[in-house]
């Protein structure tokens, strides 16, 4: 499997990172280098092996489904690049 310029552009788009057209060939090369390194994993016999979901054999604890926090609008908005009238503001989303 190898990444061409078009795939590199698609990955950048999926990752929501703007990459100028002229930088895509270099990006594709770099990604291919890393993927080639990962190809070693194909040498391993993984038949019947469970993919790891948790590194320690513990069950995630469930807590009671109750409200434990809240009413912190000011603190929540404090670091927002654009907060107006108690809300996060973003560019227009719908036409």
């Amino acid at each position, binding site marked *: 499997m190898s990444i061409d310029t078009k795939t590199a552009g698609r990955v950048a788009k999926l990752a929501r990172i703007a*990459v100028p057209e002229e930088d895509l060939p270099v990006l594709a090369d770099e990604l291919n*280098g890393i993927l080639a390194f990962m190809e070693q994993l194909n040498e391993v016999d993984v038949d019947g092996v469970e*993919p790891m979901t948790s590194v*320690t054999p513990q069950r995630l604890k469930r807590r009671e489904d109750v409200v434990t926090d809240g009413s912190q609008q000011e603190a929540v908005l404090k670091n927002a690049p654009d907060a107006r009238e108690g809300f996060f503001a973003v560019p227009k989303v719908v036409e």
Partner: protein
Amino acid sequence: MGELSKLTIAAARDGMRSGDFTSVDVTKDCLAEIEASGTLNAFVHNTPEIALNQAEAADARIKSGNAPAMCGVPLGIKDLFATRGVATQAASDILKDFKPEYESTITQQLWDAGSVMLGKLNMDQFAMGSSNETSCYGDVVNPWKVDDRHLTPGGSSGGSASAVAADLCLAATGTDTGGSIRQPAAFVGITGIKPTYGRCSRWGVVAFASSLDQAGPMTKSVRDAAIMLEAMSGHDPKDSTSSELAVPDFEAALTGDIRGKKIGIPKEYRLDGMPDEIEALWQDGIAMMKDAGAEIVDISLPHTKYALPAYYVVAPAEASSNLARYDGVRFGHRASLAQGDGITEMYEKTRAEGFGPEVQRRVMIGTYVLSAGFYDAYYNRARKVRTLIKKDFEDVFAQGVDAILTPATPSAAFGLGEMKDADPVQMYLNDVFTVTVNLAGLPGIAVPAGLDKQGLPLGLQLIGRPWEEGDLLNHAYVLEQAAGFVAKPEKWW
């Protein structure tokens, strides 16, 4: 100035308790050292006012008796830990001006124990890097110097490593996803422990790869590591992966007696092209453990070779998901937009401006390995290999092995900029001895054990059984005593 900043945590604790000096004295010494350490670029946000207030409160508490061991001890905090009202940027422009409204559980525990915050420490951006050259604050410089070159302190906890080795603070917090505590500790000649996954709460620590990330202390001695790790450990309801197991008295575990213990030497860690000095150091370490009465056994961890490629699938996959939150909406940087730009352009421009090149690369690799059609081929396969890597260790521990001894790094510290034109994969090889431990969730510790012929520190790594940090620290203590590493960098900065 500076004599008190050279203290270990244990010596400072004892001296403050017996009234030889106060926390304010030690803190002022550290602040003066930090002030004069600009060249190292280790501290990036200094908090002298907070430090002096905390030191005064600590002195009052010590005077009243009953103060915990960490009370009054001045620390540096890696920029990855959220500290209320104090810049927390993960060394990234995307979190520029971010001042959290909350405190990470670990730092809160340290402040509750009376510790003193000197400031925030430089690191690789989002903890991604092995040389501290990906930071938005610029490179960190290793206090060790043998010629005209500035050397890397390693990464990602490079600021923590530099600051402790240069005696700017008594100890520092670090985090370790693939070796980010142990590799820099080895590069600067200090001790660094990554505990068992789940020993320390991850709440309030900027996430890189959540199934691998663990915090730990970086200190001037094994005893200090034991004292500080205990203060950082424990269950936190806000991190569902943090363990409910009781935290033992780690310092009490340092008996210096490892007679009859079995130390495993994994043959797969003997790499082609590894410098002779690393091999010689390893042999010295083996001899020291043997002299202390341990039994040395040859072991095999057959999937070791696949740990790095598995890591470079799993870690970027988790990072791409964790870093999706940096969208320019709730906190941090937002790009200025052109007329007609919509929300997608806002995301794309913000992330292109805010993330550095290595972070972008890893987010995109993660996006790719998780994308439809490649998920099984890369991500699921890597998770299966991870299961096998963990099983390698379980098999060895089932044979009665108590600890595993390996080199900490494949080389001594290298020059800043020397890897600039190298392929990213070359840099990843720095983690070859440390990354298996994260994949298996085990505790691992780097202990300084000698100098190479240039005069640069080299470290050995001990790997322990899960949840047996006390026993692991005791093995490290024996190694530390036997190695007798006392070298310090000569002050040039």
